[in-house]
């Protein structure tokens, strides 16, 4: 296969199939937000430091500003929009609301995806494990205490 400057990719995002032509240089976060119009995932830093753009790609937590859209060809992507169903928050989202785990909310989509990945791997994480699990996600508002509480409460 030769090198190309754009190609058609197929992805499954939150259970829906999309086929789009993308430039090779396009970051996955820009594809998700600007091409697919799913603006739940945020761009905080654009340098891989803040985690606001975190999504799951084939079940693996990644920062979508650190990956090209063409690299996700054929993948199953999960974003924050996929958490609620039929207008109902899921347990983790409800726990964030109940525990005041957000103030401005900018970090929340990424935090929710990191917590989702953590809870799938470890159903009852310790505080230490929760903190390690969300280390790649920066929150400038809450001081993290309530985020940790919410994730603890969401653990079944």
């Amino acid at each position, binding site marked *: *296969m*030769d*090198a*190309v*400057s754009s*190609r058609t990719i197929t992805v499954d995002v939150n259970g829906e199939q999309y086929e789009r032509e993308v*430039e*090779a*240089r396009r*970051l996955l976060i820009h594809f998700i937000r600007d091409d697919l119009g799913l603006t739940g995932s945020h761009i905080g830093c*654009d*340098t*891989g430091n803040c*985690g606001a753009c*975190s999504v799951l790609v084939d079940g*693996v*937590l*990644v*920062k979508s500003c*650190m*990956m*090209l859209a*063409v*690299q996700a060809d054929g993948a199953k992507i999960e974003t924050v929009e996929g958490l609620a169903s039929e207008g109902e928050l899921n347990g983790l989202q409800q726990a964030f609301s109940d525990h005041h785990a957000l103030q401005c909310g900018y970090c929340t989509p990424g935090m929710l995806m*990191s917590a989702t*990945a*953590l809870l799938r791997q470890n159903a009852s994480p310790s505080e230490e494990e929760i903190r*390690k*699990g969300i*280390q*790649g*996600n920066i929150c400038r508002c809450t001081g993290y205490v309530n985020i940790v509480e919410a994730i603890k409460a969401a653990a079944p």
Partner: protein
Amino acid sequence: MLLREVEYARPASVQEALRLLGSNDGARALAGGQTLINVMKARAASPDVLVDLADLGELRGIELGSDGTLEIGAMTTYTDIVESAEARARPILGEVCNQIADVQVRNRGTIGGNVCSNDPTNHLPPLLVAVGATMTILGQGGERSVPAQEFFLGVYMTAAGPGELLTKISVPPGKSDGFASVPIGRDGTCIVNVAASLDGGTPRLVIGCVDAVPVALMPDSVEEDAVRASVRGANLDPPADVHATADYRRHLAEVLALRAVALAAGRN
């Protein structure tokens, strides 16, 4: 931030990847992208062609040989190493990989990318020198092995030259290893890090973040005086930046060398 226009290829075989890398001066291998994509955003480098190694299954995975040697494919992620039962044959590997950045970076970043980028603050260059790893490099002209100590040539420069691929890293058996660092934040970029290994007779100390390449030292013994003398004798000339003065880095190198040796000795 937008990247400059670039071409992308996702070869299905190592030979194909080598052909793509060899046929264009501006071609670069793309591993986990956790350094390269940032470098491209900042336009510190603007490759013409990215050769994504993601589909090269033979570059990924960990095998434990009957003599205890671990063979780790260059595309193996930090998370793969942390979770691998085989990798526990040399426990320090998983322990240090688990200190790199965060879950997301560990899920994408690869052992090969870590050493090929040879950022002087990275965790793995000093560690792999200390444990006596060997790098296997494949190019159009064939395959060769390079000891880790000779692999690192300068900042962002290694023995894997243009058009070549690092395919695997072999780590001999051993367990008396230690790693000590002062990072920025809990598991962040290191200000200074030191890896020590006491396997194979003479103690080996390797200091990161103080020079363009890891600084390898062989103290006469693991006694405090000998370790201090060997670090002082290296006349380190570390960089100064917003995180630490050169003097403070020199101080850290000595203190962390003692800690790394103590950790390694505790595992004899």
